């Protein structure tokens, strides 16, 4: 028992001395912890933003498939721009709306006998440091077709370089730019690509763009590389 008492006293002494040494920096430790917490909150917000933007773009694809144009429109910022293939640039929702409806003959919703799949794949999303805007590269695989029509089926492909903006805490598409690479008949596939098919697909029906094409890329069979919004991730600065 005396031994144990001495041991306990010694422990208390050590703890007290240690506490005294640490107590001086307790305030600093709280400040350091606060800074670490703030950094974590920012990093967590970045991850959350990135996931939200990926959901936004994928939702776009699922609505687009079914030609749900009002749902698609709601994903855009008011002054957003849309540019699909060689469509030219449509500026603002009021201009984008008739363009989208024009893609399906003025109606919205799925049409019997018409396939309009737009797979949204391979995202590289970069959120700005301030968390208020972002860029995203994506790839679309397009599968369209008219049932019963001998050459009515098509494969399409090409990357997007899109932009996003956070308005009142909600991410929206501020620029949709699809660099269609090919749209080819199911029969023969990309053996004989005719860029005019892509032009017709992009034109929609009965609308004209507010601005000419923003970039002078050419689809397959031309070799052109739509610009990358990001630096090579393996690069050492």
């Amino acid at each position: 028992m005396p031994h144990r008492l001495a041991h306990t006293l010694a422990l208390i002494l050590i703890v007290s001395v240690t506490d005294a040494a640490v107590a001086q920096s307790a305030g600093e430790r709280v400040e350091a912890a606060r800074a670490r917490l703030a950094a974590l909150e920012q990093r967590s917000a970045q991850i959350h933003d990135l996931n939200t933007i990926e959901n936004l773009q994928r939702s776009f694809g699922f609505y687009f498939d079914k030609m749900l144009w009002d749902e698609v429109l709601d994903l855009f910022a008011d002054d957003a721009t849309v540019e699909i293939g060689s469509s030219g640039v449509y500026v603002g929702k009021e201009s984008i709306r008739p363009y989208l409806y024009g893609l399906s003959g003025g109606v919205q919703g799925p049409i019997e006998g018409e396939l309009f799949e737009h797979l949204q794949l391979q995202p590289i999303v970069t959120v700005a440091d301030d968390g208020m805007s972002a860029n995203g590269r994506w790839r679309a695989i397009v599968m369209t077709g008219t049932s019963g029509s001998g050459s009515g089926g098509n494969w399409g492909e090409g990357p997007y370089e899109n932009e996003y903006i956070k308005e009142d805490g909600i991410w929206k598409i501020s620029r949709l730019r699809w660099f269609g690479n090919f749209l080819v008949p199911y029969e023969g596939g990309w053996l004989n690509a005719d860029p005019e098919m892509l032009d017709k697909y992009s034109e929609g029906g009965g609308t004209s763009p507010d601005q000419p094409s923003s970039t002078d890329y050419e689809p397959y069979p031309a070799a052109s590389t739509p610009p990358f919004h990001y630096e090579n991730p393996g690069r050492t600065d």
Partner: protein
Amino acid sequence: MVLICVGGLAMAQPEADLARLAALEAELGALETEIEQLEDSKAIKRLQRAYGYYVDKKLADEVAMLFAEDATVELGGLGIYVGRNRVAEFYDWVMGGPLEDGELYNHMILQGVVNVAEDGETANGRWRALIQTGTNGESAVWAEGPYENEYIKEDGVWRFSKVRWYQTLAAAYDPGWHLEPMPLEQPSEAFPPDLPPTDIYESFPGKFLTPFHYENPVTGRTLPEAE
């Protein structure tokens, strides 16, 4: 004893506060590790997808920049090339870049299963490539198959330490894989690999169980070794 008890009570408040602070610091540390795992996973997916977009356009220099110094690459049945310089030469040779008019070389990178090691220094990833290549008016080809890749973090930057692609199928678009599948390519004599292929296997219609780097995420079961 009484004295000690009183002493203990007097000490209790600051001691308790310090203990709570230490506990908070430990929780912060655990959360930092968790966030870093999420960031690592996202950085690796970004790297792997960037690879696909560069291969699309046959940008061999950009592709090589994604590899670590000692990395290896092994595509289909072509054998293994070792080290970033050889990797760069390999992509230059196998792709023949840059992309020219009339050429299609799409490499879509899909379906990532990425697992970062607990120490956050290495990772593995299984992905699927869906490939559309061709020369306009001459050829149109489908190919498909999984990657089992490895990654390493060097000075905070994730890079490939190993790229390994298993060809499941390759075939001309017309008549398609059910009628005229193409065999696996063999190591080149003109540009021989540094090491022979890891496994001898056949692509479709042959069968091959591509190894999985991960255990079944529900049962934890490891698949038996491929034959």
